[in-house]
């Protein structure tokens, strides 16, 4: 039997001036189940709240309806008051008779009529309300950072700084990522290694940070505060605990013809290798695709020269399982392959290079020791053409539809560095637009034009033809002069579009986070929650969420860390009780709900059911994890059998409201 209390607020004159509050209270007192109906000057005041509290005790109320301002305003106030009086806070409903009635209507008669209907609607709903309790879910005080580039390193350092344990999982033998390969950084032109390597060392020395290099995430289970992650530690055939990183093995290894990925394949390394001098951890790794010992059992030189006895040809992939409270995704990017763009002759001519290759060509630790020489004949190039937007803003399947964002700036940097170091070089940049938003960015680009006299040409290159004399004919359009240009260049540099790392999509599936069609992780809200994924407890850092330069990446990495710290600080999370739940008896197990759930809160299990005919049937049924569900209700409509319902906004509650309005 329902015992409902109705409380009509005057809100001073805010409501009372256009709604006859006394008449509303009187009309609602006759509704079914209503045992007390009162009006009061200020319901939200202490004495107003006491009125409600006393009525709950006195009349042993089972539901409370407050006719007042918007629930967005005071729903929590009244829930708290009722809770203090011993009534479950979710047995309160608000009829919004201020914002949606008294403030917008002028005629007292019609406004009062509407207020009565709104009150009735709330009564109809509260009659069907059920007591709800918020669940508490514990938080594991450890974070996982997936990816050890500058984004991952920064997030890990910040979280560790706040006193929490952090594990970094990096798929390469060293952390550092793309930034380690970059020569100089815009717009300040300081050396990337000089600012990155101290951070790498800091990460390795921080006692809260544990680096799993040459490792991959292979499975993720659980939910916010309580993820269980399986990490695959790939066999590197070197005992990490024993290797001192002396590098003797890399000198002695007879297999010296392995393309060196750190130098973008422009020179070679050995089969056992340390990616670069400042690698962290500085441990050798054997490349099983080239090691003769691993391939045909003939060699073993590295094992013989290693004084620490670290080489272990029998090492196997290992799996470890750990629990985490928060996960930061920092999987980064790769430039796309230029091979699909025949017009730029990348595969025909070694002197057509990508920007990342140019970084290595210019780097002091690169193949030429820092002197810019053409890959083909090791001669100094006198005319260099840069081509922008190769694959960016490209709608066909060779490229990417988005702007890769960083190319305009790094090309200005390259052009400027070249003109600075080799003033006799002529530099042309073919562009569609020059996009330089960012602090000191446009000034930087203008400096390239005005001070360094880099020839920026609006228009794209249509054809690149290597010629017999070693020159490369670049044919492009000058849109401003409305003419076609032919330039005999010595070196052509392609600003390749960047794309999310290939590991991102399978990872997103494991994390049940969303991705856009370009495989960038989708943020929880494009404006207001840009570093969280829609899945609680998963945070986004760096280019995995969208193209970014280094300062933006670091900013987002720190923001993601701050969000993760905020989560890890809590001992437990209070979950919103207004979540979906499935009636197992009615569930078909058809997976429709799972497909619309943006949070991956729904899982299926095979459950045994005792049937009316006393047999036991095993059926596939949905179950909702209340700690993950955010209560949007998309599943309730996708469910054909109506097994899925939403606490606080149930099918029957909403239909009761509909009926009350239409009555």
């Amino acid at each position, binding site marked *: 039997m329902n015992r409902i209390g109705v409380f009509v607020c005057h809100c001073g004159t805010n409501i009372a001036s256009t709604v006859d509050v006394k008449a509303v209270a009187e009309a609602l007192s006759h509704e079914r189940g209503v045992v007390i109906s009162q009006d009061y000057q200020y319901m939200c005041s202490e004495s107003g709240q006491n009125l409600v509290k006393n009525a709950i005790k006195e009349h042993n109320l089972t539901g409370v309806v407050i006719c007042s301002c918007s629930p967005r305003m005071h729903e929590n106030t009244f829930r708290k008051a009722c809770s203090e009086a011993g009534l479950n806070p979710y047995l309160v409903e608000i009829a919004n008779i201020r914002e949606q009635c008294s403030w917008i209507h002028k005629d007292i008669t019609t406004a009062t009529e509407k207020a009565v209907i709104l009150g009735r609607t709330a009564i109809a709903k509260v009659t069907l309300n059920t007591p709800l309790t918020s669940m508490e879910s514990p938080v594991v005080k450890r974070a996982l950072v997936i990816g050890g580039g500058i984004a991952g390193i920064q997030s890990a350092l910040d979280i560790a700084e706040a006193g929490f344990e952090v594990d970094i999982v990096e798929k390469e033998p060293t952390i550092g990522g793309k930034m380690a390969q970059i020569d100089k950084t815009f717009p300040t032109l300081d050396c990337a290694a000089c600012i990155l390597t101290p951070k790498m060392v800091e990460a390795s020395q921080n006692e809260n940070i544990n680096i799993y290099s040459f490792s991959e995430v292979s499975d993720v289970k659980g939910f916010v505060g309580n993820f269980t992650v399986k990490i695959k530690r790939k066999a590197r055939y070197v005992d990490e605990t024993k290797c001192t990183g002396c590098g003797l093995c890399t000198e002695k290894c007879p297999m010296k013809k392995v393309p060196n990925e750190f130098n973008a394949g422009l020179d070679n390394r050995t089969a056992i290798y340390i990616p670069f001098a400042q690698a962290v951890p500085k441990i050798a790794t054997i490349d099983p695709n080239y090691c003769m010992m691993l391939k045909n059992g003939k060699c073993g030189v590295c094992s013989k020269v290693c004084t620490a006895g670290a080489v272990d040809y029998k090492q196997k992939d290992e799996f470890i399982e750990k629990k985490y409270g928060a996960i930061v995704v920092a999987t980064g990017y790769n430039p796309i392959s230029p091979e699909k763009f025949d017009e730029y002759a990348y595969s025909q001519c070694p002197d057509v290079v990508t920007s990342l290759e140019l970084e290595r060509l210019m780097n002091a630790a690169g193949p030429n020791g820092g002197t810019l020489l053409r890959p083909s004949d090791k001669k100094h190039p006198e005319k260099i053409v840069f081509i922008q937007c190769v694959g960016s803003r490209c709608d066909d399947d060779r490229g990417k539809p988005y702007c890769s964002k960083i190319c305009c700036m790094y090309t200005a940097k390259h052009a400027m560095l070249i003109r600075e170091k080799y003033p006799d070089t002529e530099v042309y940049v073919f562009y569609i637009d020059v996009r330089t938003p960012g602090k000191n960015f446009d000034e930087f680009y203008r400096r390239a*034009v005005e001070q360094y006299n880099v020839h920026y040409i609006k228009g794209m290159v249509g054809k690149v033809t290597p010629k017999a004399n070693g020159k490369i004919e670049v044919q492009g359009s000058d849109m*401003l*002069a409305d003419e076609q240009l032919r330039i005999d260049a010595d070196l052509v540099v392609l600003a390749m579009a960047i794309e999310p790392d290939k590991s991102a999509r399978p990872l997103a599936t494991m994390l049940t986070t969303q991705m856009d069609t370009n495989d960038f992780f989708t943020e929880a809200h494009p404006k207001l929650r840009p570093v969280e994924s829609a899945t609680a407890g998963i945070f986004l850092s760096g280019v995995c969420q969208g193209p970014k330069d280094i300062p933006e990446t670091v900013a987002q990495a720190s923001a993601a860390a701050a969000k993760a710290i905020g989560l890890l600080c809590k001992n437990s999370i209070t979950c919103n009780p207004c979540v979906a739940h499935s009636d197992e008896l009615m569930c078909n197990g058809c997976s429709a709900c799972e497909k619309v759930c943006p949070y991956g809160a729904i899982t299926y299990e095979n459950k045994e059911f005792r049937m009316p005919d006393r047999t036991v049937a095993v059926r596939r049924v949905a179950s909702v994890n209340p700690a993950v569900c955010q209560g949007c209700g998309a599943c309730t409509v996708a469910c054909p059998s109506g097994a899925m319902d939403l606490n606080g906004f149930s099918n029957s509650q909403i239909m009761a409201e509909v009926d009350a309005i239409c009555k």
Partner: protein
Amino acid sequence: MNSKNENLKEQVLRASGVNVLKCMRCGKCSGTCPAYGEMEYHPHQFVYMIEKGDIEKLMNSPSIYRCLTCFACVDRCPRGVEPAKAVEAVRLMAVRKQDGNRLKPEQIPDMLDEDMPQQAIVTALRKYRK
């Protein structure tokens, strides 16, 4: 680009004092130019062609006499490039050229266009205003 006449370009740059590299091709000069419709090469093209060394084309174009030197482009340029000065410099180059095309007083009446303010007067007004 440097196949064009670098010498002429240098002369124009010196004579005008304009830094064409400052131009960011926004086109505001041409957007504001009252003589736009009369010109073969518009103010922004002047700047760009000078940068590219295409001076002779400009010298031979009637555009240099269509410029009113009203200085609207100079006023409005967000980067202080001063296209009108560049036009003036090219015009000077054309005028200074030996033989042929020196402007003789008796030619002026024929060149006047009644729809247009008298170029020389307006030029003088603008130039010697201060």
